[in-house]
């Protein structure tokens, strides 16, 4: 890790960031932060402005307005200072084809101000961490598979033990085993580095991240812990109920337990009907619904609460108007 320094409140700060290309606005008035040691998922549909935002934070692109800082250092005013705290792996992870993995990492370590007497040790360490030592260290990067190239990119990001790591789609093109490996690697960074990670694999983000930031059409639509967003964006709980009763009987039984309950028919087969029952969040009927239905004499084969995942949160967040319901 870099030399001891006062811990800033936020490792990454984006404050009213805006990026315009002529009449096209790629990012508009975007504000969020990442705390030291926190892993944050940066989500949005294709073309939402994720990569643009990451590039502005990494200093490879200038914003039209707003402020970006890395570990308290302004990216615009002191780009070299900000870069000393930052490692950035861009989306397509460009690598020189004609260098061997070890040579490339050694060069990058020198450029990233790793102390000369620690370069060899750091290169060896990150190659071990990213499982590159045995199968890739002496090979030309141009001959590596997509998975190994991604590992080289992540190894490069970790080389100088930065305070902040920004990874744009780090698991794109990887097989499930490799994704698992990368996920464990990122998880191991929790508490050591602030990580901002964009990915379309929402399950993966949910597994790894402490918090998510969701943008749509360049604007922030939601940010916070998954549980908080679930409560904010999905204000109901849903059950799948399989019963012989018809919709009217089921609705009557549900309403007896919770007057605001709603029932929607889903499917029907062999005399068994499948319904989706929704209750408001916080309704006491959530605990007692099964008992209420049995008490009402309904023939019940199955009742299960649906789990809303990050995918549901993402869909709910990206459906609503940009700027609506932001959280700080």
């Amino acid at each position: 890790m870099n030399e001891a320094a006062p811990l800033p409140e936020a490792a990454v700060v984006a404050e009213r960031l805006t990026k315009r290309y002529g009449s096209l606005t790629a990012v508009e008035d975007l504000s969020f932060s990442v705390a030291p040691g926190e892993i944050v998922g940066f989500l949005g549909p294709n073309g939402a402005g994720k990569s643009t935002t990451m590039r502005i934070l990494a200093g490879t692109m200038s914003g039209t307005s707003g402020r970006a800082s890395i570990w308290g250092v302004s990216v615009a005013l002191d780009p070299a200072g900000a870069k000393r705290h930052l490692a950035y792996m861009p989306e397509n992870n460009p690598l020189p084809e004609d260098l061997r993995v070890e040579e490339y990492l050694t060069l990058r370590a020198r450029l990233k101000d790793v102390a000369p007497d620690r370069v060899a040790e750091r290169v060896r360490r990150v190659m071990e961490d990213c499982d590159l030592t045995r199968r890739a260290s002496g090979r030309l990067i141009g001959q590596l598979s997509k998975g190994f190239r991604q590992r080289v990119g992540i190894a490069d990001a970790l080389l100088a033990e930065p305070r902040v790591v920004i990874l744009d789609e780090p698991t794109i093109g990887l097989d499930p085993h490799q994704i698992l490996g990368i996920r464990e690697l990122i998880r191991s960074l929790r508490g050591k580095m602030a990580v901002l990670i964009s990915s379309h694999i929402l399950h993966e983000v949910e597994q790894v991240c402490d918090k998510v930031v969701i943008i749509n059409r360049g604007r922030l639509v939601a940010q916070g812990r998954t549980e908080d967003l679930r409560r904010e964006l999905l204000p109901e709980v849903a059950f799948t109920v399989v019963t012989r009763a018809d919709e009217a009987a089921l609705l009557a039984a549900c309403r007896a337990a919770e007057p605001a309950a709603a029932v929607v028919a889903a499917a029907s087969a062999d005399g068994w009907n499948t319904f989706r029952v929704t209750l408001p969040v916080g309704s006491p009927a959530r605990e007692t619904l099964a008992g209420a239905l049995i008490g009402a004499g309904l023939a019940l084969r199955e009742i299960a609460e649906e789990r809303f995942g990050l995918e549901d949160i993402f869909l709910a967040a990206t459906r609503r108007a940009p700027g609506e319901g932001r959280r700080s």
Partner: protein
Amino acid sequence: MRHFRTLLAHELRSAALSWNTWAAAGLFLALMGGIHFFALVDAARAPAPRSPVEATLWFFWLPLLCVLPLLTMRTFAEERRSGTLAALLTTPASPAAVVWAKFLAVWIVWVLFWLAFAAFPFLAAQRLDGANARALGEASALWGGLCFIAVSGLLHVAIGILCSCVTRSAALAALLAFISLLALTAAGGALETLPIESWEWLGWLREPAAHLRTFGHLQDFTDGVLDARPLVLYGTGTLLCLGLAVLTVEGQE
């Protein structure tokens, strides 16, 4: 200029391992070897105002236009196309260090090419007896010519680097460099052929035209005349081109 030495060592190593460099070296030595051979044959047929070495150096524009763009075209264009330049700029290395390292690496390779060419006259002299060897030309003319190549090469390489900065296509970068170098090399000669003296309104061109005499500079160097003006021209031109290249790299998004 942080990390300049690291970047320069990397660029030199990359150049040494690149097929592009070796192909350019082969083309350069074939061109210059052929020119020198014909210069020797001509000198053997009849006495000429210029020695074979000077006559060969007079054709410096040929490798300048055909070989140098091959060395400079990939420096930035290829890295911009592949995205490795953006990745490089995420490190604390400054754009100025990147530009200067690439510039100096190409310039060193270019000078090494010409030093390799210098072996031709020495090899020819070794195969001839004393009088004939002296007829090949003075060694001072060769070294003077090479000094001209090294000094003017600063500007020529800087132009190639700048051309490579402004595009993602290596082929287009080579074409731009070719046109720019052709214009620079021919400009002095073209201006000299114009009847400037008889056109009053073109009188202001007289002075710049005198400064841009590329072949005149070569003649001065081979004659051992050290004039400060070409040094200033090539020095300031180099700084201007590299400054623009740094701004271009910094401004790339």
